[in-house]
């Protein structure tokens, strides 16, 4: 038995370690910092990138236009910085008046002088020794007031002083030992920090929680699976709702006019639907949550009783679309299920408008024209004792990497993967073990469509006509989040050849490429300081992009090596 004093010392040490450690350069930490207000988040200055997708409508679009299709070939790196770690670097460099914040796997936050690349401070979080990190990544910070917020792999939200990186507060959202973790950038609005939980593959019950931005105290919590007696609970047999999944992987969108947030939800568990007959609400859906109360006021389920691991992780983009002479306040979602969904949002709820496949899809036989509810070809629906092949693969037509929208072209830009199918079969037995894998399914290697000349695609869709405008093809799969700019240039990486690329927004023609240290799955951003437009992105391959590539390699008999290790890259036009 340990001595009491030793125990206390250990407890203090553990607390210290759990709180994380911030190291900063004192001389630089006192610099001016522009507080982030609701007004600024609602209408950010053109030169700043203050949140995950820059604006609440999740467009991933910047009005900056100094870098154009005509001059983008002159783009050169102006500074880089190693993050000092490996795995999937997926976070956007978020910039507020010259200060850049990036997160890395293992919940590190780095604050840079965005112009010079000087490191202002860093926060390193030490993970508990018994944590399972199924998705070692983080997708960025939220800014609000004078704080920087990060959701962590051990299911906490940590608030840091934006000037120093010192911990202002830390709030436990759930117990990581129960399979809960977080990878998303928080959504900050109206005094609240909103986050959702991952862990759908580990028997969690998903939810979104809002914390008070000042104190970290919980304001509301809304489950994405109803409890018995609540509307939708009839779609879950027995106790399956307790471990049914419906995680929330990615930052929600926010419509300030309706005061409503919109979140995508993941798939149910175990993975094959015959284990939990029913629609399994609100999995594979978009849910509308009131920002003040968290009340779930509306939903649309893209597909019911999922059996394909098609988490509908991304939040829909809020885009006005013309249909039949009428303006529709749209929810636009290129789904992991391979369909491009257009829904209408209003105070009355969410209504289906139309949907069509944007990659090869062999599961849906038809959609109800009024509700959009799909019917399935059961030959392609995996079950216990039924090994089924289905397309797209379990990583879908588009996984988490966000699409972008440019109001200049009216195009939606989708980072897609086509010509891939997967096989899955439900296991004979599945036992819930707290915190452990609860998929109950075996997936085998991929099938690449015979004769296919490519897998990755960057697609541009004219949302007004509902037609595809162009497609740029990549031999490699594409895991590149997309940046759209008013300069008529689209940026993304995403391929295993390590290139960061620029495309003509109107035509899809590749205009520029630069080979980086690793594969890019980071969200690119752009910002302006002293009249210079910069483009920033993290390069650092890992997590699902790596997993998909391994399966494609096995299917093709190839061995693609993508070196790991994170680097922040910042580009600008070559000085003339």
């Amino acid at each position, binding site marked *: 038995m340990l001595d009491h004093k030793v125990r206390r010392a250990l407890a203090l040490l553990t607390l210290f370690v759990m709180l994380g450690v911030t190291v900063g350069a004192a001389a630089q930490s006192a610099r001016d910092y522009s507080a982030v207000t609701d007004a600024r988040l609602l209408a950010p200055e053109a030169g700043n990138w203050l949140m995950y997708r820059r604006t609440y409508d999740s467009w991933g679009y910047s009005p900056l236009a100094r870098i154009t299709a005509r001059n983008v070939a002159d783009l050169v790196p102006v500074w880089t910085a190693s993050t000092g770690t490996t795995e999937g670097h997926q976070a956007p460099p978020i910039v507020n008046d010259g200060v850049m914040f990036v997160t890395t796997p293992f919940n590190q936050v780095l604050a840079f002088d965005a112009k010079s690349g000087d490191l202002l401070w860093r926060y390193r979080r030490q993970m508990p020794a018994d944590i399972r990190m199924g998705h070692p990544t983080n997708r960025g910070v939220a800014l609000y007031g004078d704080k920087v917020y990060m959701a962590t792999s051990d299911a906490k939200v940590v608030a840091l002083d934006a000037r120093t990186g010192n911990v202002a507060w830390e709030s436990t959202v759930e117990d990581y030992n129960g399979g809960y973790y977080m990878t998303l950038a928080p959504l900050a609005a109206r005094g609240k920090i909103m986050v959702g939980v991952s862990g759908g593959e580990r028997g969690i019950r998903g939810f979104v929680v809002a914390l008070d931005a000042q104190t970290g105290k919980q304001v509301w919590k809304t489950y994405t699976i109803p409890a018995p007696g609540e509307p939708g609970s009839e779609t879950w047999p027995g106790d399956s709702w307790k471990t049914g999944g419906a995680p929330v992987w990615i930052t929600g969108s926010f419509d300030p006019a309706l005061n409503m947030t919109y979140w995508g939800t993941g798939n149910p568990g175990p993975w094959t639907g015959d284990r939990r007959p029913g629609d399994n609400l609100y999995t594979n859906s978009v849910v509308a949550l009131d920002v003040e109360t968290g009340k779930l006021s509306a939903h649309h389920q893209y597909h019911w009783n999922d059996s394909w691991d098609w988490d509908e992780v991304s939040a829909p983009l809020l885009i006005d679309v013309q249909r039949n002479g009428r303006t529709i306040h749209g929810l636009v979602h290129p789904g992991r299920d391979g369909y491009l969904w257009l829904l209408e949002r209003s105070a009355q709820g969410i209504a289906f408008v139309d949907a069509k496949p944007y990659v090869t899809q062999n599961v849906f036989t038809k959609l109800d024209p009024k509700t959009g509810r799909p019917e399935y070809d059961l030959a392609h629906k995996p079950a216990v004792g039924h090994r089924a092949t289905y397309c797209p693969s379990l990583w879908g037509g588009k996984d988490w990497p966000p699409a972008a929208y440019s109001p200049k072209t009216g195009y939606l830009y989708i980072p897609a993967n086509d010509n891939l199918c997967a096989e899955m079969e439900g296991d004979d037995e599945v036992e819930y073990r707290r915190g452990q894998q609860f*998929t109950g399914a075996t997936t085998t290697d991929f099938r690449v469509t015979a004769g296919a000349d490519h897998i990755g695609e960057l697609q541009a869709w004219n949302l007004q006509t509902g037609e595809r405008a162009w497609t740029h093809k990549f031999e490699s799969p594409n895991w590149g989040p997309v940046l759209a700019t008013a300069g008529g240039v689209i940026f993304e990486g995403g391929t295993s050849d390590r290139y960061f690329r620029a495309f003509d927004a109107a035509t899809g023609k590749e205009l520029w490429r630069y080979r980086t240290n690793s594969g890019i799955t980071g969200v690119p951003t752009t910002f302006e300081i002293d009249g210079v437009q910069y483009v920033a992105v993290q390069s650092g391959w890992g997590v699902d992009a790596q*997993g998909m590539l391994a399966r494609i390699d096995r299917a093709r008999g190839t061995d693609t090596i993508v070196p790991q290790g994170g680097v922040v890259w910042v580009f600008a036009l070559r000085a003339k």
Partner: protein
Amino acid sequence: MILKRRCMLRACCALAVAGAAAARADDADEAHAAPQAGDALVFAYGARAGEVIAPTDLAFGAKQTLAFPMNPATKRVRDGTRLNQLIVVRVDPAGLRGETSTRSAGGVVAYSGVCSHTGCDVTDWLPDARHFKCPCHESEFDPSDAARVVAGPAPWQLAALPLKLVDGAISIAGPFEGKVGFAQPGGDPFGARPPV
């Protein structure tokens, strides 16, 4: 007299409470302690959870059984931390390589069930290759050869737990050999030391 008796009762109660608390603390320590020489192996889950695993419970070449160590004297299962979760298989003793041969008990080998990559539970099995597989990132480990990495991103082998047979029963022969769990990469990449 009554007062005295009350005092004695109070003292007894206090002692009893303190004793119970100490027992609970001892119990928790025992459950969290790493596997030790002389421990038995018990089923971690399922209908037989907590029962001792006999060599005959493990079929040659079958998927790994998840187990915890148990102190045979107190019958306390060391399941207080998932870092004690073990994966146990029975393989052909003739196929064991190197130190795995000396660590095995009649072909039964045990390893930490925590992946060295990012800490997931190594619960999948490739029946043809007879390899462990981690469901998170598809690292594969060869149980006949020190659970060395044969595929995937894991940086090093799983920690091994030496076993022996005592009167036909499986007994742990010593502590883990190798590191249990994973390490955050990067060390201190910026060359600074955190304040102490």
